[in-house]
C-alpha cells in the first residue's frame, strides 16, 4: 500500500467520499497500482455480495398509511 494512501482512503474513495485532492491522487495512481485495484475489487465483490433489499409486508405499509391519514389534519398552506 502506498505510504500516503491507506485502505481507509480507498474505502472513502469507493464510496465517493474522499476529498477532491485525495480522489485526484488515487485516480492518477490507480492504473499503476495493482494493490489498490485489488483492494477496490475486493470491496466491490464484498458489497455486491451484501446487496439485498427487503421490503416491508404490504400489510405493514397499509397500517402506516392508515395511520398517516388519521393523524393528518389539513391546515392549508400559509
Amino acid at each position, binding site marked *: 500500500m502506498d505510504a500516503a494512501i491507506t*485502505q*481507509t482512503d480507498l*474505502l*472513502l474513495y469507493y*464510496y465517493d*467520499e474522499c476529498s477532491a485532492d485525495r480522489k485526484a491522487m488515487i485516480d492518477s495512481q490507480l492504473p499503476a497500482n495493482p494493490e489498490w485495484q485489488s483492494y477496490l475489487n*475486493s*470491496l466491490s*465483490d*464484498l*458489497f455486491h*455480495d*451484501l446487496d*439485498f*433489499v*427487503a*421490503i*416491508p*409486508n404490504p400489510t*405493514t*405499509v397499509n*397500517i*402506516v*398509511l392508515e*395511520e*398517516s*391519514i388519521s*393523524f*393528518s*389534519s*389539513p*391546515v*392549508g*398552506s400559509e
Partner: protein
Amino acid sequence: MDAPMITDGVLIQRYVAGNQAAFETLLKRHRARIFTSIYVLVNDRYLAEDIFQEVFIKVIQSVNAGKYSHEDKFLPWAMRIARNLSIDHIRQRKRMPMITDSEGGDIFDNIGLFEKSPEQLRIEKDKNAQLRAMIWKLPEEQREVLVLRHYADLSFKEIAVLTESNLNTCIGRMHYAVLNLRKMMQKNTVVVK
C-alpha cells in the same frame, strides 16, 4: 428522461398541508432502505416489521406536531429513529427468550425476482440468511456502521453525527467490518455468486 424528483422536504410540507399522496410517495421512496437496514440490524423479520411501523408512526406524529425541522435530511432523521428503536429492541431481546425467525417470511425484492426459478429463489434466500447471520456476528458498532452506510446509504459524516462518534472512528469500524466479513466468508465459504 426522469422527471425532477420532488425533495423529501417538499413532500413533508405537502403532507402537512393535507396532501396524503405526498406521504405515500415519501414512504415508498424510503421503505426499502429503512426496512432493509432495520431487518439487518435486528435479524428478525417480524420484529423488523414492528419496528418499521413504529418508526413511521413516530415520523407521522413528529411531522404533524410541527417538530420536523430537517428539511431534506429526512433519511438520516428517520434512520436515527430506526436505529434507536432497533437498539432498544435488541437490548430487550437480550433479556428475553429469543424470538424465532419465520421460515417463510422473507420477501426479497431483487431485480429480476419474477424471472427466477423457485430453486434460484431458494438458493438466494439461503444465501441472504447466511449473510445476515454473518453481519449479526459482527461487533455491534461495526454492524451499525455497515448497515447505516451500505443499506441505509448514509454518508460517513451523517453516520458520525447519528451515532455521536468521531468520523475516523466510523470509517475505522467500517474497515474492520469489511475485514471481519471477509474472514467469515472465507471460513464459511458462502456461495456468493
